[in-house]
């Protein structure tokens, strides 16, 4: 069975949320049996989730009943959601009961979530397909990442190996479960029979700290921005004796913060483990073993167990000497099947055969450790979330009568337009559609968007900051 869930102690707590809901391993199996009896197998199911027991059940119910979930933020922009529904025609939707619209009838409700049959027919999808995640949830792009069953199982096994986790772990999961790294915390810990503590509170909520302190949390996993907040909140002045592992992913941590957490971990006998990953690699692909965290500041480490990392040059040839920049390639059992842009694509099999060009420009030091230098593809990671720049240009052009070009850094997206009358509206629109704070966007006016003779935007001539 998926993640060997039926081999765990049935009365062991599997998931506890900050609303007080508790789910045992036995409950997970029982819930999935009910779910399975009510759904046609191999359906595409949209799971609109919060970080709570019901949201996690959306994932386990679908996987255990041989259905394929697309995990989405329940708070995503409704127009973007409608667009995804029209594109992928899910047969069912699992979402919080309170978000039911008039006329929607649930066929099953559990832990505050409802299952709705949309009336869409079940259509052919590939036997290996297990899970769908968005490449850029915030821009509503219909481009999805297709995961296989073995992708998730390999990732669960390999993550639990390098974190050295077992059934005594109690990870705090406040990263969204529709986000690849958040989801990996869930399934890797279910795989080892641990107890996942899930919350949609964040470090600026007092309930977060109550939940953390009351539940003997053993690990925290977060993105760079949250570590900056924890640093400001003087997290490092306190002990938290139950915490064993502090791990980070979703972008590069500032050296100062990286070092402060590495030192704190050493002082308090915890492990600080930075990781690197992408949705296309079923979350993690590299990690820095805790013993190197003080000597290899800013490093993403080496490939996770079962995987291999190397660099290639512009011709696609392998780079073997150290300190030369190249595109990083990952090979391993967690490399996903490929993308989907339409329902027909869900019938496709494995298009990558275990090899993923990451799009990240990387250098390797003489000890064989990897350092990210830049990025080849046109996206930013704002607050840990991938935001496609071309998609943002489409969003703006779709709503305003302007020409525009988007560029920027992981701190801020810079949007250049050729018309100054709606600068504030564009900024507000980007914030509303992506659900990200408006401070992540700046809109500037130019006389003309610079283009080459063939009409391509000359991004190199635009200031990124």
């Amino acid at each position, binding site marked *: 069975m998926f993640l060997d869930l039926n081999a765990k102690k049935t009365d062991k707590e599997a998931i506890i949320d900050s609303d007080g809901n508790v789910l045992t391993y036995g409950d997970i199996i029982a819930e999935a049996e009910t779910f399975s009896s009510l759904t046609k197998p191999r359906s595409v199911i949209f799971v609109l989730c919060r970080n709570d027991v019901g949201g996690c059940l959306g994932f386990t119910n679908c996987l255990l009943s041989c259905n394929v979930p697309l995990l989405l933020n329940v708070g995503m922009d409704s127009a973007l959601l409608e667009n995804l529904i029209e594109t992928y025609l899910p047969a069912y939707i699992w979402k919080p009961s309170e978000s039911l619209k008039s006329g929607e009838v649930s066929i099953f409700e559990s832990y505050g979530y409802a299952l709705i049959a949309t009336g869409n027919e079940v259509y052919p999808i590939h036997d290996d397909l297990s899970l769908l995640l968005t490449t850029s949830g915030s821009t509503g792009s219909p481009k999805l990442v297709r995961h296989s069953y073995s992708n998730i199982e390999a990732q669960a096994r390999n993550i639990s190996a390098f974190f050295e986790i077992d059934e005594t772990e109690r990870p705090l999961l406040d990263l969204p479960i529709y986000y690849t790294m958040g989801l990996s915390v869930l399934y890797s810990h279910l795989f080892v029979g641990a107890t996942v503590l899930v919350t949609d509170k964040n470090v600026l909520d007092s309930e977060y700290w109550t939940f953390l302190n009351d539940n003997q949390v053993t690990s925290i996993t977060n993105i760079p921005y949250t570590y900056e907040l924890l640093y*400001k909140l003087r997290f490092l002045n306190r002990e938290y004796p139950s915490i064993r592992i502090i791990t980070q992913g979703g972008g590069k941590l500032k050296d100062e913060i990286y070092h402060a957490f590495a030192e704190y971990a050493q002082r308090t006998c915890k492990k600080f483990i930075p990781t690197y990953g992408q949705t296309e690699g079923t979350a993690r692909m590299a990690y820095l073993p805790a013993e190197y965290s003080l000597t290899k500041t800013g490093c993403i480490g080496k490939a996770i167990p079962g995987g291999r990392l190397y660099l290639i040059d512009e011709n696609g040839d392998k780079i073997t000497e150290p300190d030369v920049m190249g595109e990083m390639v990952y090979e391993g059992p967690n490399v996903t099947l490929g993308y989907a842009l339409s329902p027909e694509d869900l019938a496709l099999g494995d298009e990558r055969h275990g090899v993923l060009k990451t799009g990240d420009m990387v250098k390797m030091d003489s000890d064989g450790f990897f350092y990210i230098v830049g990025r080849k593809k046109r996206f930013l990671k704002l607050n840990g979330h991938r935001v496609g720049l071309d998609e943002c240009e489409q969003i703006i052009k779709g709503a305003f009568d302007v020409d525009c070009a988007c560029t920027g850094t992981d701190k801020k997206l810079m949007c250049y337009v050729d018309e100054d009358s709606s600068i504030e509206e564009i900024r507000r629109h980007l914030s509303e559609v992506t659900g990200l704070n408006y*401070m992540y966007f700046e809109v500037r006016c130019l006389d003309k968007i610079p283009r080459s003779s063939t009409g391509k935007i000359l991004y190199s001539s635009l200031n990124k900051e």
Partner: protein
Amino acid sequence: MSNLAKYKKTLYDVLAIPEETDCSSLERGVSQNWDSVGHIALISALEEAFDVMFEIEDLLSFKTFDQGIEILKKYGIMFED
């Protein structure tokens, strides 16, 4: 400018709220832009505007327009009715 006006102006500016909004209904996690990113920016702006330094507990419990006033009062900022 009264302290209340200063407080409101800081909220409007930092959270990019249209002037006509009823600010007494503002709530963190609900109102546009008042998420964790907006909250940190708001705290910094209020600390600067009122020359105070919030304790972590106050920073965490500050979730509504009214709570902000109560917290500022603790730091000796007077709000005349």
